[in-house]
């Protein structure tokens, strides 16, 4: 399987360990050029974060690659998912560690990116293990961490929206401010009266997001702001369906494509299959999601978990 730009970026990030956001962006931009892809380099970096390979501190504009981890995921039939660092030598050791009759290594490309028209993100590396013990030993053999049911842990660690934002912000200039319409998810020009809710401060192609409530402006992350804005509205934004054995389909969790999820929610959902979501009819679809994980995420984001109609 040929390397995607995301594979190159993950290998570079793994070798470097940690650095500034600018350095990561430039590496991503280089890979977009060398792969002749015209997409925002942030599409690459976002995918690495969503897949649990690296963490980005947006405030300090730094990042670090995560420790290599063998994830045993419920519903994947002992097909372990490798996340975190992937240096050349680490991948070499992983391959050696997987040379065992009780381990069957596999690699699969990520879904095709709709802008690049080819997979962008790092490939999925799996190892089907004969038992939990074999999976644990595989991790030990190449000095990786071992974790069972990562999605439940990530969903539990995710910050909910019950606490209001606290970081104060200056009011935006009305000419730069756009209000998030919670009914349509559209951004509309701010009214002079500044109704409460989520605002986008449009600095050209860089956005900052603000929450306005009771005459107080605060900084807010976009996903948190969106879910805060739609909280209490009579709409079903999460839907879950169990696996359909007859149809050979995994369980599904779907969210409107225009609503973003907090990073840890995104990570909890992608690690459940090791793949980025796909988009169908305006909904982003994640698969092999335990109902308990779906319910936890919905609850933390102030939503009920709906069924498919």
């Amino acid at each position, binding site marked *: 399987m040929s390397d995607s730009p995301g594979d190159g970026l993950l290998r570079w990030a*793994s070798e470097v*360990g940690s650095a500034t956001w600018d350095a990561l962006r430039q590496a991503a931009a280089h*890979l977009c050029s060398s792969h002749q892809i015209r997409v925002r380099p942030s599409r690459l970096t976002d995918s690495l974060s969503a897949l649990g390979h690296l963490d980005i501190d947006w405030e300090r504009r730094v990042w670090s690659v995560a420790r290599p981890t063998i994830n045993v995921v419920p519903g994947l039939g002992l097909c372990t998912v490798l996340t975190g660092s992937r240096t050349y030598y680490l991948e070499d050791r992983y391959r050696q560690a997987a040379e065992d009759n009780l381990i069957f290594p596999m690699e699969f490309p990520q879904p095709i990116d709709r802008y690049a028209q080819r997979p962008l993100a790092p490939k999925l590396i799996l190892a089907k293990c004969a038992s939990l013990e074999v999976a644990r030993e595989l991790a030990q053999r190449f000095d990786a961490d071992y974790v069972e049911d990562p999605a439940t842990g990530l969903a539990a660690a995710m910050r909910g929206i019950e606490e209001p934002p606290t970081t104060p912000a200056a009011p935006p200039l009305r000419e730069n401010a756009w209000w998030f319409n919670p009914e349509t998810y559209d951004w509309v020009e701010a009214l002079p009266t500044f109704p409460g809710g989520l605002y986008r401060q449009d600095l050209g192609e860089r956005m900052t997001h603000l929450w306005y409530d009771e005459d107080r402006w605060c900084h807010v992350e976009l996903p948190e702001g969106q879910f805060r804005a739609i909280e209490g509205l009579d709409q079903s934004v999460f839907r879950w369906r169990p696996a359909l054995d007859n149809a050979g389909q995994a369980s599904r969790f779907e969210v409107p494509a225009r609503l973003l999820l907090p990073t840890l929610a995104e990570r909890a959902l992608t690690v459940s299959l090791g793949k980025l979501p796909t988009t169908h009819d305006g909904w982003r679809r994640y698969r092999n999601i335990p109902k308990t994980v779906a319910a936890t995420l919905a609850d933390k984001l102030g939503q009920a978990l709906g069924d498919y109609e």
Partner: protein
Amino acid sequence: MPLSYEDWAERLFEFFFDEENDGEEILFAIDEPTLQEIYPEGGTAAGSSLAQAVASRIQGSQWLVSNVYLNMVQPWERLGRPGAHPALPLLALTVLAASRMQTGGSFAANNYYVPLRRTLDPNDVGHGPPGDFRDYIEQLWFSVEEWSTVTLEGRMGILRAESQSLRYVGLALQHAFLRASDLRHLDEFFRRFGLEPGEDLDVEPAELRRRIRAWLLGRNEPWAIRLRDACKDRQGDDRELMSHCERLLIREARRWDGRPRDPRTGRAIGQILLVVKSRANPQPGLYPKWDQRLPESQVLHLPGADPTTITRVEGFGWYKPHPLPIENLGQVLEEGLDVTGEPTNFQFAEASLYTLSYDNEIAAWASVDHITFGEPHIFVVRAEIADEVAQFLAGQAEEGGPAGHPMKPLGDDRLSDWRLIGPSRIDVRPTAGLPDALAPFLPAGRGLSLRLLGGLRIGERRNVYLRGGEPAIGLSELADPNQPLVVERAETDEPVGGDLEIRTGADEVPPWNLEPQPGEDEVPLWTLKLEPGEYIVKQGGARAIFAIVEGVSAVAGPGAGGVLTDGVSGTIAPAPAPAVRPHMVVVRPGIGSWVILGSSPDEYEAMKLPRWLKEEFREPHEPAFLTWTEIDAWLDFDPIWQLFPSSESGAGTREARLLHPSEPTTDGTSEGTDWAMQILGAELHADAEQEEQGLWLRYRERAQGR
């Protein structure tokens, strides 16, 4: 009150000799503006004050330079050379005279003595060398050089006394043929050609001089004309000036750190930046910027305004008040602004294009010296180049991204010749077609030598790249364009990768000959798919070396796991008390479902084999291959029994198998539960031992409510 000769000596010493010049040559550039900086109280009379002070020591127009040497310098030397050198004011006057020579004319001696005489005494109508000038002037220069080199050990800079062919005159001319303010424009040149602060510049001085001259061709600003003239090829008596010019240019290149400095003294200069508060109603202003080299508070002498005290906004990188009270903003944008300050001078550098990025500290767009990839910028541009710049920026838009880059006039009548473009964003280093005005802001295109651009650089060395992350080669302006670019394996005495172990691929690989296309500024190397090893790139005499490696880290580079997302690094975020845990259970061939029972009636789980996985994890056009003999069951209870249907359809009697022996814990209310129904509808497998049979019997009794 005019300054005395001794006062002038002290002030000149303080102004030019500074630890910032440690080990460097001093450009003793004396002209009228410099004298006013040294003696601000004197204003425009600073030059005549100096002349008056010098005249008092050399008997006026009798020009007895011997008085300074014999009566001042020699006694001072005998005292151990304390304080300022007594010859500094006289030498300053000789340089001032040289600065008044006809611009663009020959520097021959016969052009020098008239201005020299008239600088001291405007009424002097004489010609030729005055008094005993030629008998002593060299000794004075040599004495100053020895003092700066030996007594001060070069720690505050070295004032050279090299005249060579231009004896007597060349000593002063070498400091006067170029204005100090002209040298600040080299900043644009260094940025344009991608010089990095601290870079070990491997370039011939003459090539650098010629390249700067070529860069200035076609530019008509007064500074550009002077600098171009200074950089021209010279013959005969003027050759020494050419060498001196080259030394100065190399010095400036080597100590360039991207921040403005006074080329005479090496001291920091503060920056004044262009700021636009609102894009909807763009009214530009000038803001003084603080950096760590500058004091927290100081005074600026702005043209046409009272002295203005500026104070740093606590914790921020800006001074207040802002904007500065500047009346003729249009003129300032075109011509720049030098502001005398106490203690630091400030400058605003003129340009035909200003790049601004959003600064959170002042919630406004402020001019910057480089474009950050991926960040939005706006551009304040001269109207005549606005279309070209807007067109280029539109071409940088990503596919599917916004293509339009609105252009509008500035909301200020004084700036009718300027336009505002953007915001727009450049994601990737452009490889060609970059407008000249944008070039200083993007490290792209040709440089002074072959340069390694982009790529996936790793490790501590500057030129080690990850396999698959080969850099591009930025071509050299100085190389012969007809020469091909050659890339070949290298064996260097000192390995490029330092201590890194570089695995090499095939030993014998032919050199690659790459033909740069016309108009191309850089050549990407990633198409070569280079094997690990050390490489050298050559084009004529220019060369660059680099290494390709598979990797340098065993598990991850330094700092891995150091950044957290909501307290989590990667995927390890253990739930405080995991509710479900995995257990291994058996899978029967041809049977896709089963039931797991625990010891109490609420411990029941119907499970299915994840057949969808067989489709998910298979190669295209290949049969499914995933099979299981055992699989993980995720349960919130300890499993005791596994019940298999006798057929795939699930019909018929189930067969029970013991997983872990444990007594039932029901209290007799299990009747009718799924748990009880499953037990009562199942039979223990035929091979069960007596103990297992006994346990199964007790479970059946509980299922019946007994």
